[in-house]
């Protein structure tokens, strides 16, 4: 079920009504409702894959309890391995099997061997990369004795499958989300109203900005050979907006929906395109994944301790794995590696934690230096996004090559529709003026009632009017 679908518009109020009106005094029953709703939400896409979520939940729930009771180091390691192999095994099979087979065949063919590849017609279960990482963090935290396992199976199953963030994150830690299932939730007007504002802002980002940019991106990337330099740069720029609007929009809707049920999910994006360097960008982009890799991969590998080479190795591993997490394609691996290369100089010169505050502190506008820093960071990020969007490495390299060899100016301004440019301009302005707040609409919550209501209505009308007729799937569903 998509957040921007008619089905979800019916599903959400029904679950909300049952949750707060019928089951309001019973946390267990509320959890049961959330579990059933989450399975319905996921099964709407393909009910067969519910078994994977259930299986993953059973394994990690059992392993978690056993880990807690087992003092022996060796046995604990085996238990942890069971969880890791189960979760990464599912992920590996459904997401990476064909990639590994094809890459192996391509690799050995370089040496003159030509085995016939035995690829399978595997459907990628939606959101598998998200929920497997979420359950995995639960077991690892218990193994590291940072978390006590829950004996409440219902809460745990509901935590793994919680529908607002099930298919595209944020990837929640058990230490944050699981306790919220155990304690009694209270409805507060402020919390729910914030949730609605987040949902509206997320829908605007997804349906107006991302989906319209997607139409241009698809055309430019499909026909890049003949496009001018300006159009090719615009293609990369539009894609940067598309993926940001799409993914951060989803996160906003997820967080807003969770708020309606009394839950608080972590912030996943903090206006990353206003970053002054790539280190700041990665502190602001897909925060739940970056921190996951930091805590469960980078630090166990040694992090930034050790020799220079160890630091370089650890950094490159985390970026490459992060790229590979996004998809079974060399383009994602290169995308991750390029980000790593871009990040390394900052790390090696110890400048990676220079920009911990927000840009333009206590000012309305950035200064010239900040503008330059943000522009360069954004420009390089856009170039690297080309690998993320391209069909394959060859496509990406050719696209980037054409950026410098094709004619500079286009024959017409077909790819620069004034109305879209205006909307994008408005979006960037709103993002700038609200970026110390949670979302654009939160900023106006203290405004006079007439202005507030006018803004809400205007946003709904803009969404209704400007949403493209062909709905686009959320990009991150495929990850």
């Amino acid at each position, binding site marked *: 079920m998509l957040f921007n679908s008619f089905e979800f518009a019916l599903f959400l109020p029904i679950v909300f009504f049952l949750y707060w009106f019928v089951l309001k005094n019973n946390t267990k029953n509320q959890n049961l409702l959330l579990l059933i709703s989450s399975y319905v939400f996921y099964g709407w896409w393909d009910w067969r894959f519910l078994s994977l979520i259930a299986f993953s939940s059973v394994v990690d729930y059992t392993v978690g309890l056993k880990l807690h009771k087992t003092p022996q180091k060796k046995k604990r390691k085996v238990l942890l391995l069971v969880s890791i192999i189960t979760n990464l095994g599912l992920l590996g099979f459904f997401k990476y099997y064909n990639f590994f087979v094809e890459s192996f065949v391509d690799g050995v063919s370089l040496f003159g061997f030509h085995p016939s590849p035995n690829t399978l017609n595997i459907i990628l279960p939606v959101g598998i990369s998200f929920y497997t990482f979420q359950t995995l963090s639960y077991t690892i935290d218990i193994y590291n004795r940072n978390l006590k396992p829950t004996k409440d199976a219902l809460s745990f199953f509901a935590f793994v499958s919680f529908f607002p963030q099930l298919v595209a994150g944020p990837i929640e830690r058990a230490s944050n989300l699981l306790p919220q299932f155990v304690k009694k939730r209270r*409805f507060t007007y402020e919390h729910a*109203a914030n949730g609605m504002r987040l949902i509206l802002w997320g829908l605007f980002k997804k349906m107006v900005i991302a989906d*319209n940019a997607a139409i241009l991106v698809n055309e430019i990337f499909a026909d890049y050979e003949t496009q001018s330099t300006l159009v090719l740069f615009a293609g990369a720029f539009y894609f940067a907006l598309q993926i940001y609007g799409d993914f951060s929009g989803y996160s906003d809707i997820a967080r807003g929906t969770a708020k309606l049920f009394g839950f608080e999910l972590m912030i996943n994006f903090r206006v990353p395109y206003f970053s002054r360097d790539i280190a700041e960008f990665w502190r602001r982009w897909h925060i739940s994944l970056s921190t996951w890799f930091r805590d469960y991969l980078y630090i166990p590998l040694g992090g930034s301790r050790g020799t220079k080479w160890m630091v370089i190795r650890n950094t490159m591993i985390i970026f490459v794995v992060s790229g590979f997490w996004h998809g079974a394609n060399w383009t994602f691996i290169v995308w991750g590696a390029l980000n790593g290369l871009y990040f390394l100089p900052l790390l090696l010169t110890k400048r990676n934690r220079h920009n911990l505050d927000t840009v333009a502190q206590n000012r309305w506008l950035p200064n010239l230096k900040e503008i330059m820093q943000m522009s360069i960071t954004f420009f390089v990020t856009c170039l690297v996004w080309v690998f993320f969007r391209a069909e394959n490495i060859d496509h990406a390299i050719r696209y980037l090559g054409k950026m410098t060899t094709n004619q500079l100016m286009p024959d017409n301004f077909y790819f620069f*529709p004034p109305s879209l440019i205006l909307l994008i301009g408005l979006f960037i302005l709103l993002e700038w003026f609200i970026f110390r707040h949670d979302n654009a609409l939160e900023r106006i919550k203290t405004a006079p009632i007439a202005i507030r209501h006018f803004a809400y209505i205007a946003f709904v009308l803009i969404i209704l*009017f400007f949403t493209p007729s062909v709905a686009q799937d959320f990009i991150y569903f495929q990850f």
Partner: protein
Amino acid sequence: MNRFIQKVLYISIITLITQFIVGNVLHEKRNKLVEEVYFPVKRWKEFYAHPKKSVGMIFLGSSHCYRSLVPSVFDSVLNVNSFNLGSSSQSISTSYYVLREALKFQSPKTVVLEIFQGTITNGNTYIDVMHNFSQMQSNVKYAMLQTVSLNEALSLAAFPLKRVAINKDQILLNKKVLPDTTRAQYSIYYDKGYVATFSKNIFQFAEQEIEPNAPFSINDLQLEYLHKINQLCLDNQIKLIAVTQPLHPAYWKNHPEKEIYDEISNTLNELSIPYYNLNHTHPLPAEFFYDAGHILHQGAILFSRDVANLLEQNQ
């Protein structure tokens, strides 16, 4: 809790009312623009004004029909009274309901169904509802519900603003603009449903209008309605003929012509519907095209003459 629900309901109701008012106002405005370019009101008005049972030949199909088949040419060659009921993006399923409506007033001996791969491979869209059914005197709701999904129909009914924003992506992105007011400057409603197109597309976007390489197959709904049209014609002793208008060579850059028209031809053969694909037999030089898919008035005269001659030869 009550305060929250009251607020959500209150804002939802105000939003619904606002979008209803704004939507309907804009819809009216849009209808005027639609009329300037596609002339649905003029076409149906003229059709309904014809004396009952006076029309002997009806053309059905997309813009490749109402901008390409000139009734006056058929009238002079075949000595009939013909009428063009083609309309923008008219799919086969839409043609079926248009024909049913037409048969309430007229008893044609021949129906010429224009076949274009773009409308036979897709399901129905809002555009059908907007441009085709909107001016019919009867059957409108029934036809809509039969051919447009319930989701779409409900969405259209509840949100007039969505109706205005049909092809919103195109409106927003300022391309293939519907209604295309630039095209309006070059379109003239002649008579009997035919719209003449003059001058070349000033933007020279012919090639950009081509959708890339979608795998071709006839849409199930359209196939079902092709059978229905055939049956309707058989039941009413009408001769059903299918034709395809020549397309600009640029159009075929991304479309496997043979594959597409082989499948269409086989399907029509199975139903014993005579099919004239003038792409093969009577291609037109580039100067007769407005864009990759549409022909200019001079091209339409030639195309119509060719079709009329073929019909005469095979009578």
